[in-house]
Each structure stands twice: as C-alpha cells, then as structure tokens.
C-alpha cells in the first residue's frame, strides 16, 4: 500500500494522531471491498452504497479507539450496517422492513411444506452472477443481510451475531430461512424462464 509506505518512510509513526491514521489505514482499508459489497446488497443502489461505505470509514476512523482488537472486519461491517439502517430510516422504509420481516419469517416457516414430502429436484440450473444477485436482492432485509454476511463476506456465525447484534441462534435460523427462500426463488425463476 503506497500510503503505508510513505508514512513509514517519512517516519511519523511516533506521533499519536499519525499513528492512529496509520494503524487505521493498515487495518481497515483492506476490507473496503467487503464493506462496499455489503452496502450494495443492503441498499440495492450503487450511489447510496458508495455514500454508505464512505460514511462507514469516516465513523470507523472517528471511533477507532473503541475497536478492541480481534478481527476488524465484523466491527467495520457492524458500523456499515448502522449507516445503512439510518439510510433505511431516511428513506422512510423502516416500518416496511419490519413488516416485511415478520410476514417473511412466517412464510419461510412452512417451506417445503407440512406435507413431509421429499424435495424432488436437487440440482439447480446454473445462473450467472447478475441473475443470482437479482434473486438475493429479492430476499427480505434481515435474511438478505445474514445470507450475504455468511456467503459473500464469509463471516463465521459468531461474527455475524456480532454484526447484527443478535444471538448465534438467531443467525442460524435466519440463515436456514434465507437459504430456503433463495432456493425457492431460484426454482421459481427456472419455471418462469
């Protein structure tokens, strides 16, 4: 990283504020793609995602003292998530999100039916990245965020729990439902095309 190199070469590490910026850059910037990716999936809009990622890094730098070590990725993604939720609120979508979640949790409850039948088709047709992204975009917010944190940001269950501020059990049930819903949407897509 050029910023890193130049700072060390100029030898200002020993100054407090410089050292903070230096440590922050080294720790946080490598995760920009992860932050931006989550922002894209949460906000479903390129311009908003860029704004959110930028705001996330500013907040993270301002509060870098509160980062208590360990893996920084979940800490950054938790901040990004807060930024995105503020954006939901600004869009006036918060009430919709909540309703959406409840009804979706109920709908997801009965996936694969109470009939006890065995799912027949076990091989999904391959789709390209755009098509898969469109399917993920259709998942309700709470399921989408858990699925993306797991499958795309590649966090562990415990890290996801840390990001969304919920117990690991909630992560597990949301992930199960997210995947059930996604598979359902995927099969429906195959039928339509």
């Amino acid at each position: 990283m050029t910023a890193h190199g130049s700072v060390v070469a100029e030898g200002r590490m020993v100054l407090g504020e410089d050292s903070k910026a230096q440590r922050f850059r080294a720790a946080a910037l490598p995760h920009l793609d992860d932050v931006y990716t989550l922002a894209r999936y949460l906000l479903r809009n390129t311009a908003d995602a860029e704004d959110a990622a930028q705001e996330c890094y500013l907040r993270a730098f301002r509060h870098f003292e509160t980062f208590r070590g360990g893996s920084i990725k979940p800490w950054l993604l938790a901040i990004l998530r807060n930024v995105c939720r503020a954006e939901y609120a600004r869009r006036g979508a918060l009430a919709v999100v909540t309703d959406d979640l409840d009804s979706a949790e109920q709908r997801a409850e009965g996936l694969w039916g109470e009939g006890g039948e065995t799912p027949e088709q076990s091989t999904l047709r391959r789709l390209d990245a755009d098509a898969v992204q469109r399917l993920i975009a259709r998942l309700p917010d709470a399921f989408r965020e858990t699925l993306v944190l797991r499958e795309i940001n590649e966090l562990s269950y415990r890290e996801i729990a840390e990001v969304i501020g919920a117990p690991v059990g909630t992560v597990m049930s949301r992930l199960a439902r997210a995947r059930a819903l996604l598979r359902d949407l995927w099969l429906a897509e195959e039928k339509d095309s």
Partner: protein
Amino acid sequence: MTCEETEILLHALIDNELDAGHAREVEAHVATCARCAAKLAAYRDMRDATRGVTLRHVAPAKLRATIEREIPSPTRATSRRALLKGFALGGVVSAAAAASVAFVVVKQDRDSRILGETISAHLRSLQADHLTDVLSSDQHTVKPWFNGRIDLAPPVVDLTAQGFTLVGGRLDYIDGKPVAAIVYRRRVHVINLFVGQGLGPPLPAPRLEMVQGFNILRWNDQGLTLMAVSDLNRDELEEFKAKFDAAARGG
C-alpha cells in the same frame, strides 16, 4: 436428533460451524432420514451452483481514493531532525506493533471461539435430557465414569454441604476436543464445570468474563483448564471456585 433441529443444524454442518460431536449427530440423522438427506443435498447443490459465480463487488477506484483522502494524512510540518529520529523509531515501532497485533488477533480468534463453544455447550446442556450422561450426586460414581471416556482425570468433588449440589457428569466437546463436564446446581442455577487440556491461553490468574450474558470463570490447575459457566452472579461463581478448590485440595 429431530428433523426440526436438523433443518437448522445442517446449515451449520455445511458451513463447518459444528463441533465434532454435533456434526456426527447431524450426519447420523441424515443417514437415516431421506427427507433431511435430500435437503442437505439440495443446499450443497445450491452452494455448488453459486461457487465460481462472482457475487462480490469491487469498490470503485474513485471511492477508494475519496476515503484515502478523508482519513487524515500525516502532518507535513516536521523538522528534519524529528523526521530522522522518527524514522529510526518508526521502523522498530511498526514491526513491534505488527507482531503484537498479529499475536493478539490469532490468540483472540481462537480464544473467543473457545468461549463461544463453551457457552454453546452450556446452553445445550440446559435443554431437556442433555445435562448429564451420568446422573449421580456421589463423587465416587461420577469420577470413575470418566475413566476410559476421556484422557484426563477430572477433579470431581461433592459440594452439597457447601451449597453447590453435584448433579452428575457428561462428556462434551470444545475446540474439537473432548472435555469433561461436571454439573452442579445452586438453587435453580446450573453450573457446568468444563475440564480439559490446552483450552485457551495459559492463565496465570483466574479470569472472570461475561459472555452472551453468562459468567465464565476459568483457571489453570495442574496442567488442566477449568471453566465454570453459569448464569449465577460473579460473587457466587467465585464462591463456587473457592469451595471447589478447598474441597479438591482436601480430598
């Protein structure tokens, strides 16, 4: 294991998040249940179908440049002298900082995983019929039960007279290793005392932590790691340790 539990846990199996014991349980259920086996196959297939598909986004260069610009850069006005002095120190400081950061990251990752698994094991034990494999308030029944089941001799002492009733023992898994769980009860509170080898960092002194709303008090004794987990308050958990230590030394 029921189909309902499996429905959730098979995802943890796919994601490699299950400890060895539970992975075996899920696999055993799947082996005898066509419906759950089909689901597992279906989710594995979905994972295969998304593998190799680029679902990540790459941050635009413009965004990266903006963020780089906005994080305050090092101040420009520094004397030549300070600059040279800083240079020498800078090299040392950054190497030391990098080493300590790497050390802390590695250690904490494993340690927080161990703490998380300890809490999970405690929670599982609170589910019906999961608490004990050997149910006895007699330490002379519980202690030999571990013989041949685990490669260490856990200290088992009866603390009923001291207000902590011995309920029994159980074999559990933390960090992929078998551990002995000795179960005590105080009023309505369950205490799981996990005993294992090489669980987490060496502890020069007992350490009390609050994890997911539970207190974990852990310490080392004669090469073993002991972790007492409960929803009891800190004072009573420390009292438990004090009485346990006294009785273990006495017995």
